[in-house]
C-alpha cells in the first residue's frame, strides 16, 4: 500500500505519578507516515517533547509484535485502538487519516492504578495466577509427553484459551472493569487438559477468591472484552468459568 503522510492532533492523558491528579494535554503529531506503527508515532512525538526539554509520554511496551502483552492504551475509546484482533503495538497509522484527533487514555480500573501517564500497574493479574493458575508439578519426574494422548479438538480448545497475553484490555473494555475473560481463559485452558484435572476445583476457587479481593467488577455479559481482546479469546471461557466455579463451590469438601 502506498505511503501517506498525515498531521494529527493527540489528546493524551498525563499524570505525574500514582497519587497525582492527571489531565489531558494536547500535542500535534506532524508528518506521520501511514507505514508507522501507533507506538512509532508516539516515539516521534516523544522525540519532539524531549528536544523541547519536556518529559516524554510514558507508556508500556516491549516486544512490539503483539505477544508480550505489555502495551496498552485506550485509543479513541477502544482498548488497543480501532483494529480487530490487534494490540496497540501492531496497530498501524494507515488506520487513521490526515487531520484526525486521537484521544489516548490509560486502562482505567480500580485494580489497575495508573503509575504514570499511560502506564498502569497490572500486577493484580499476576496475583490471580499466583492463587492457582498452574498445575502443581515439580521439575523432574514428568511422564513421557506422549503417555497421555489428548484429542486434538480438546487440545485446540485449550490452546484458544491459552493464547491470552495478559494485557488487561478485557478489564479496560468492560463496563464493570471485570477480569473474567482473563481468569476464564486460564481456567478453561486447564479444564480442557488432563493435566489440569487434579486441581480443577481448588484452582477456580482460589483464582476467583483472589479476583474478588483485587477489586475487579463482575461480568454482566456485555462482551466488550471479547470485542477488544487482541487474541480474540471467546466469551465461551466466561461461561466455562461460571460453570467450573459453581461446580467447585457447591461440591468442595
Amino acid at each position, binding site marked *: 500500500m502506498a505511503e501517506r503522510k498525515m498531521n494529527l492532533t493527540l489528546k493524551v492523558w498525563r499524570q505525574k505519578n500514582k497519587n497525582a491528579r492527571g489531565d489531558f494535554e494536547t500535542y500535534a503529531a506532524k508528518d506521520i507516515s501511514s507505514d508507522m506503527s501507533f507506538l512509532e508515532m508516539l516515539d516521534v512525538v516523544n522525540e519532539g517533547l524531549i528536544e523541547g526539554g519536556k518529559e516524554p509520554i510514558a507508556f508500556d511496551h516491549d516486544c512490539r509484535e503483539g505477544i508480550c502483552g505489555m502495551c496498552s492504551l485506550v485509543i479513541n475509546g477502544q482498548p488497543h485502538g480501532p483494529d480487530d484482533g490487534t494490540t496497540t503495538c501492531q496497530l498501524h497509522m494507515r488506520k487513521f487519516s490526515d487531520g484526525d484527533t486521537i484521544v489516548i487514555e490509560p486502562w482505567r480500573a480500580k485494580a489497575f492504578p495508573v503509575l504514570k501517564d499511560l502506564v498502569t500497574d497490572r500486577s493484580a493479574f499476576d496475583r490471580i495466577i499466583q492463587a492457582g493458575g498452574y498445575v502443581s508439578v515439580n521439575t523432574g519426574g514428568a511422564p513421557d509427553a506422549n503417555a497421555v494422548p489428548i484429542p486434538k479438538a480438546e487440545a485446540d480448545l485449550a490452546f484458544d484459551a491459552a493464547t491470552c497475553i495478559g494485557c488487561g484490555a478485557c478489564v479496560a473494555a468492560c463496563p464493570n472493569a471485570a477480569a473474567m475473560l482473563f481468569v476464564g481463559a486460564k481456567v478453561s485452558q486447564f479444564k480442557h487438559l488432563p493435566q489440569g484435572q487434579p486441581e480443577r476445583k481448588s484452582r477456580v476457587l482460589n483464582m476467583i477468591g483472589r479476583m474478588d479481593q483485587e477489586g475487579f467488577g*463482575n461480568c454482566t455479559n456485555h462482551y466488550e472484552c471479547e470485542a477488544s481482546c487482541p487474541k480474540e479469546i471467546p466469551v*465461551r471461557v466466561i461461561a466455562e468459568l461460571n460453570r467450573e466455579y459453581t461446580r467447585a463451590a457447591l461440591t468442595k469438601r
Partner: protein
Amino acid sequence: MSTQTSFNPFRLVLDFFGSSIGAKILVALTGVIMWGFVIGHMAGNLQVFLPAPPDGYWGQQINDYGHFLKSTPALLWGTRITLIGAVFLHIGFAFRLTMKNKAARPSRYAMKRSQKSTVFGKIMPVSGIVVGLFILFHLFHFTIGLPVEVMGVSNDILQYQDQAGHHDVYKMLRVSFGQVGFVALYTICNLLLLMHLVHGTQSVWQTLGLNHKSWTPIARTLGWLLVAAIAAGNLSIPFVVMSYPPIAP
C-alpha cells in the same frame, strides 16, 4: 493436627452466593423464577379475551380464574412467597453487584466506544428499578387497592362483583384501561420489562454456564421469540381492552 471441617451445606451455599459468580448466578436464577411467573401471569391474564362460555357472560372466564386462585390458598401463597423471595434476592444481589461494578471503575473514560454492548444491557439497573416500582404499583392497583385515586380509578375496582358474586376482574380491567393514562403507563413499563428481559434472556445462559457452540444460539433465538411473545401478550391486554366501548365504573 487435622484441618478437616465437617460438611456444612449452609456454609457452602452462603460462601457461594457471597462470591461474585455466586451472586450473578443467584440473580440469574431468581430472574428465571420471575420469568416463569411472568409467563404464567400473562397466560392467566390473556383469559380476558376468552369468549363467554355457553350460558355465561363476557369476562366470566377470567373472573372464574381469579376466583380459582383465591380459593386455592396453597397455590396462591406458595407462588406469592416464592416470588417475594425471588424479587428481594434479585434486587438485593443485583444491587450489590451493580455497586461493586461501579466501584471497580472509579475514574471514567473521557471517551469510550462500545463495540458489542447493547442499550438493553447498559440500562439493566434502570429498567430493573422501573420494573420493580411498576410491580409495586401493579400490586396496589389490582391486588391491594390504590391508597389514593389515580386518573379516576380508586380502590373501588377491587369491590366489583360479577353475577356469581366473584370479584369482577373483567370489569376492573375495562375500567382501568378505559383510561389512556393507564394504558400509557402499562405500555411504558412493559416495554422496559421487555428490554430487561431481552438482555436477561441472552445473559442467563452465559451466567449459568450453559454455553454450547450450536445450542446456545438456538436457545438465544428462542429466548428472543419468547420475550417478544410476552411483550405482545402483555401489551395486547391494555390495548385491546381500551378499544372496547367505555363502561361505567
